[in-house]
């Protein structure tokens, strides 16, 4: 029997999510604790991701754990043709926990099945990135005081956006209403609409970034519209400035609205939004560290004293 791992946000039910959120808020009060003293965590980044790796490594460092690993597959044995299985088996000889990012989809699930120590998926291709979702949920909970019955407007690339798909899954336990705002080419895939229908989740679809979609929202979740996602570059040129948030667009928004973004941001949130108290994306990124501390301790069976 393989140990408990976090591969997919669907691995966590409502209770699991609340347990992590409670724990994350304690870490936010005090992130420096001795909980991982004497433990070794491996960060295996077969695909580089500085932001995610730093967040995980800081989470471990502040708990006094030690870190081994690599930040790029070029410095690992996979360039010599070693299988993922062999790398995982070798690393699990040394570490008490494996945190991995890999470009192949399903790699983390496979690793979790063969590893004798817990595995945290830090992104497997375009498939899953569950700690991103946990930090999104934590931030929503922190800023709204609840996860229930919120209206979430999600803007940008809803077709390929991994964070968006997992957020829909993660929020599905809490009766949300979604506004999906995306260009025609990047609209939300049918399978997520079917998922919402199945869970009786209300949603609206828009191709224009209308005041209505902003003003009705409790959370405005912005994502990047990337040029390389378009088959028709004329289409990109037409829409590239449509899904951009400017400060004055928030004038009539709800008091409790917060603007989130999984980062990196390029142009989709204009810099004049940054000083608006409703902008919360940098705090959101910081919350990633506390949430990851909570997930790490939860999977390792470490209780907070």
């Amino acid at each position: 029997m393989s140990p408990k791992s976090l591969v997919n946000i669907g691995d966590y039910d409502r209770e699991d999510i609340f347990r992590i959120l409670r724990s994350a808020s304690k870490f936010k009060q005090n992130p420096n604790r001795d909980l991982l003293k004497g433990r070794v965590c491996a960060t295996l980044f077969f695909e580089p991701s500085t932001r995610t790796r730093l967040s995980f490594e800081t989470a471990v460092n502040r708990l006094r754990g030690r870190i081994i690993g690599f930040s790029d597959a070029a410095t690992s044995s996979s360039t010599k043709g070693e299988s993922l299985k062999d790398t995982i088996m070798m690393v699990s000889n040394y570490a008490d926990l494996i945190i991995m990012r890999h470009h192949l989809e399903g790699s983390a699930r496979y690793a979790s099945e063969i590893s004798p120590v817990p595995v945290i998926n830090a992104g497997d291709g375009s498939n899953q990135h569950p700690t991103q979702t946990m930090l999104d949920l934590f931030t929503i909970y922190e800023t709204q005081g609840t996860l229930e019955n919120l209206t979430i407007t999600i803007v940008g690339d809803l077709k390929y956006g991994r964070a968006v798909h997992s957020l829909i899954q993660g929020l599905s336990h809490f009766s949300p209403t979604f506004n999906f705002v995306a260009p025609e080419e990047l609209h939300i895939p049918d399978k997520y609409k079917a998922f919402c229908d199945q869970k009786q989740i209300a949603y609206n679809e828009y191709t224009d970034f209308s005041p209505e979609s902003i003003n009705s929202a409790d959370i405005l979740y912005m994502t990047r519209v990337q040029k390389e996602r378009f088959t028709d570059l004329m289409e990109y040129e037409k829409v590239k400035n449509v899904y951009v948030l400017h400060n004055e667009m928030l004038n009539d928004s709800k008091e409790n609205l917060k603007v989130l973004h999984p980062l990196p941001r390029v142009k989709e949130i204009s810099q004049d939004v940054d000083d608006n108290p409703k902008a919360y994306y940098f705090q959101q990124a910081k919350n990633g560290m506390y949430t990851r501390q909570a997930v790490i301790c939860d999977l390792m069976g470490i209780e907070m004293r």
Partner: protein
Amino acid sequence: MRKELQVAALENGTAIDHIPTAAVFKVVALLQLQKLDNRITIGNNLKSSKMGTKGIIKVSDKFFREDEINRIALVAPNVNLNIIKNFEVIEKKEVVLPNEIIEIVKCNNPKCITNNEPMRTRFYVVDKEQVELQCHYCELKIRKEEIVLI
């Protein structure tokens, strides 16, 4: 008039009848009949009143386990499976699409770990009626007409 058997009668064993002609050799491979020492008769492009043409496979002294026989459900869901003892059909079975399909289907996602590591594929049957599968690893859903066997 005496009805002539198109394939010799079986004393003891399993007869798989009404196999779609295009699926006969896939059934052979899925049941790994090439590895057996038993006497095996394979008929194909035989006349069938129900199907026009059909295939039939008779394997002497072999009684398949359910999980073995269910492997063929993807390619030949409507076969007749007869268990024969002393030239008599003592039991008729149906093949049932299992909830999970292991090692038979290839994932259509080139970026799926199963296409890049020496490992078994694993799919859930998410819709038994429409025959829709979902990869346990990369979560890709595959419709019936897209299914590729390994």
